[in-house]
């Protein structure tokens, strides 16, 4: 299916759905406000067919992340401010130099009745850190010196780290760092400690779970939770409108706009969920020139990008990651479009008449549209932006190596994690090739500073450097949009990828 057909298709579908409900009443009615026990909630997500797995350490797709969360627990997870908060870990205490962390586990049991023990934690982490396997959480967990970590008793783990690291709770909350029973390798009938227990799985079609009555945080409201797969957004919307599902994940801003005032679904928006950006590579021409990068920052008409690409479902960005998250530098003035200054900088950089290729793809919704609009905004500036659409399946690997400028988006993670994965000279996914010894040193200083105020100041300094000279033109933060039946209550608006996103133990059917 090529991009144009697909877009036309979705656009047409949304328009027709809107037409079909035109004339319906105003605000959502009957939205459940008091929790009620019982019932089966059917949640529609996009899936991956034969490649879908229930192994939480392999989770990659949104549906896999949501299922992992229902079945398993992490030691910590990300709160609404994208800071780590305790989960299976009841508390954590570092030693004075931040190299040893003592974790006290909650009293929790797996679905088969066995208690969650320190040995399960150590073996789960050993599995993720296995050098022969490419689990996603491995790079985050690599700060752990497993050989020198130990189980103090059944409910106490002492982790040794390879260096001082005050943000260790972020590691415990890393994407996919779930605790599985010791020795678990076969996940065809997964056993976890999460709020729901496994019933059945048909890959590419459905997963059925049931309430875990013994969940440590209190049993879920729902009796049963069924994840169903519908890859097309229009199909998820139609299934929701037709009463076939109660929760439709990942809707487009167009759909949200069409149904925001209707009474056929409740539109739930999670602000600050996905940063939208263009990444410029600093290690090669032309963006090794700071003036030219600043010219790009000044060319972007951010409100227009948010209004057109995100259909208004988002906020403008200030070229910094993590708006609304812990440590975000709110005090840096917002950049606005300044064509005259941009023209001047382009001339100064000797880039007049230059054509710059902007790589993009349909790997994430709205990227091609944003690139096209940005190319239009650059008209009259003295240089030309040429949009090049690449292969969506290999896009992220391609832009890591090739090109000079590319569309970029990212889900929520702590600002520290974003820096560690993308902005250090040793980072594995450094798309902008930002490699500054001074910046690396600031990062080391931040993560080894125990005092919170002093640490926040260092994060502020790093963000000022990035704002002034970095390679990410972060123009917006998209809302994450889900639709629910009007009878569904308790759906959180926390950013996607945080604890409360797609968290069904707090949801009820009215």
């Amino acid at each position, binding site marked *: 299916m090529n991009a144009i057909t697909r877009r036309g298709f979705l656009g047409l579908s949304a328009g027709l759905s809107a037409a079909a409900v035109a004339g319906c009443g105003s605000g959502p009615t009957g939205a459940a406000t008091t929790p009620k026990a019982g019932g089966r909630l059917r949640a*529609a997500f996009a899936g991956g067919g034969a490649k879908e797995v229930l192994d939480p350490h392999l989770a990659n797709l949104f549906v896999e992340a949501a299922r992992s969360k229902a079945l398993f627990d992490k030691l910590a997870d990300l709160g609404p401010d994208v800071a780590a908060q305790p989960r299976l870990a009841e508390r954590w205490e570092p030693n004075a130099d931040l190299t040893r962390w003592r974790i006290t586990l909650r009293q929790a049991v797996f679905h088969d009745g066995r208690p969650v023990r320190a040995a399960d934690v150590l073996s789960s982490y050993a599995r993720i850190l296995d050098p022969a396997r490419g689990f996603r959480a491995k790079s985050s967990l690599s700060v752990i010196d497993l050989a020198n970590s130990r189980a103090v008793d059944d409910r106490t783990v002492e982790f040794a780290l390879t260096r001082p690291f005050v943000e260790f709770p972020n590691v415990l909350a890393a994407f996919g760092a779930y605790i599985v029973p010791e020795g678990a390798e076969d996940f065809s009938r997964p056993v976890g400690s999460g709020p729901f227990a496994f019933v059945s799985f048909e890959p590419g*079609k459905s997963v059925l779970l049931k309430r875990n009555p013994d969940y440590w945080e209190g049993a879920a409201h729902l009796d049963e939770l069924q994840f169903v797969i519908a890859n097309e957004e229009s*199909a998820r919307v139609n299934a929701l409108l037709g009463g076939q599902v109660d929760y439709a994940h990942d809707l487009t801003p167009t759909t949200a706009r069409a149904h925001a005032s209707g009474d056929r679904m409740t539109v739930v928006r999670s602000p600050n969920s996905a940063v939208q950006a263009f990444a410029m590579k600093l290690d090669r021409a032309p963006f090794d020139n700071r003036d030219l990068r600043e010219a790009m920052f000044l060319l972007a008409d951010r409100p227009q990008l948010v209004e057109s690409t995100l259909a208004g479902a988002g906020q403008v960005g200030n070229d910094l990651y993590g708006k609304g998250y812990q440590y975000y530098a709110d005090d840096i003035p917002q950049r606005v479009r300044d064509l005259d200054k941009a023209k001047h900088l382009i001339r100064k950089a000797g880039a007049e008449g230059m054509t710059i290729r902007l790589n993009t793809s349909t790997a994430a919704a709205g990227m091609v549209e944003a690139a096209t609009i940005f190319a239009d905004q650059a008209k009259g500036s003295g240089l030309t932006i040429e949009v090049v659409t690449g*292969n969506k399946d290999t896009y992220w690997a391609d832009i890591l190596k090739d090109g000079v400028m590319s569309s970029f988006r990212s889900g929520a993670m702590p600002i520290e994690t974003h820096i560690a994965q993308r902005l250090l000279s040793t980072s594995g996914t450094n798309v902008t090739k930002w490699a500054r010894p001074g910046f690396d040193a600031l990062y080391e200083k931040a993560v080894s500073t125990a005092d919170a105020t002093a640490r926040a100041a260092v994060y502020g300094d790093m963000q000022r450097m990035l704002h002034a000279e970095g390679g990410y033109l972060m123009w917006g933060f998209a809302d994450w949009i889900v639709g629910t039946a009007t009878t569904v209550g308790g759906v959180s608006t926390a950013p996607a990828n945080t604890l409360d996103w797609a968290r069904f133990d707090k949801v009820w059917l009215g």
Partner: protein
Amino acid sequence: MSLSRYALRRLLFGAVQVLAVVTAVFLMVHALPGDAAVALAGDDPDPDRVEVIRRALGLDRPVLERFGEWLWGLARLDFGASVVSGRPVADTLVAALGPTVVLAVLTLVLLVPLAVAAGVAGALREGGPLDRALTSVTVGLHSIPEFALAIVLVAVFGVGLGWLPPTAVGVDVLAEPAVLVLPLVVLLARPLCSISRLVRAGMLDALASDYVRHARRLGVPPGRVRFAHALPNALAPAVQQVARTTDWLLGGVIVVEAVFVIPGLGTVLVDAVAARDLPVVQGLAVVFAVTTIAVNLLADLVAFRLAPRAAA
């Protein structure tokens, strides 16, 4: 040549064709940019991690070795395992074959009688109001792209009026047959036209032919002339079109599957190509090649029976 010798020769040739298709598909998927490790790493393509995944999936082994192993397995009817999930490809194919076959069989069961009836009715009243009405309706349906028809039907009957389930998400299609109504209408729309037009044309030719005129002069009753003498000859060309339609239906109707959320072969194909999951793509290629060859062989044999001269 006898019918059985003809069939045997075609079967042997078919086996060679399957091998050729599988090899071509292997080479083409291999020529796509990226591999399963890159696709799996997704938005976290740390080169070290991609390399570890590549080794873990066995993708660092020589291509020809992997293909040879897979072919050797195929000879023993072993389709191998998904590179990504490790589940047997046969399980995935069987699970997806179910909805695809149900949809294809139901479509054909409705399509053939409807198309033949429409074609014959049109031919018998050539130029009359019925003929013109049938022509307008079938040509009209044929001219609507299937995805557009699907979306309109879902919006009107599924979501707007709420008469029929808009999708088949999460349900077993046989347990709730109502979910099949809208997809069947969409699948019938286009072949209904092509097949009924062929039947109509064949019938007109047959009715104007010497043998039919001769039968009439001999005083054979009109019903017998039309249905026992003219119709079988009129059907021969339509059989080939039915075969093509069957082949299309069994090859995974990707758009219809996507709109109505029917997890059939087309959906598996799209997912497997996106994941660069070669064993799954190759397994599908075998299924598609075998069904194409079998359906066409069957069509030739049927056409041969209906009108022996046609297949000579």
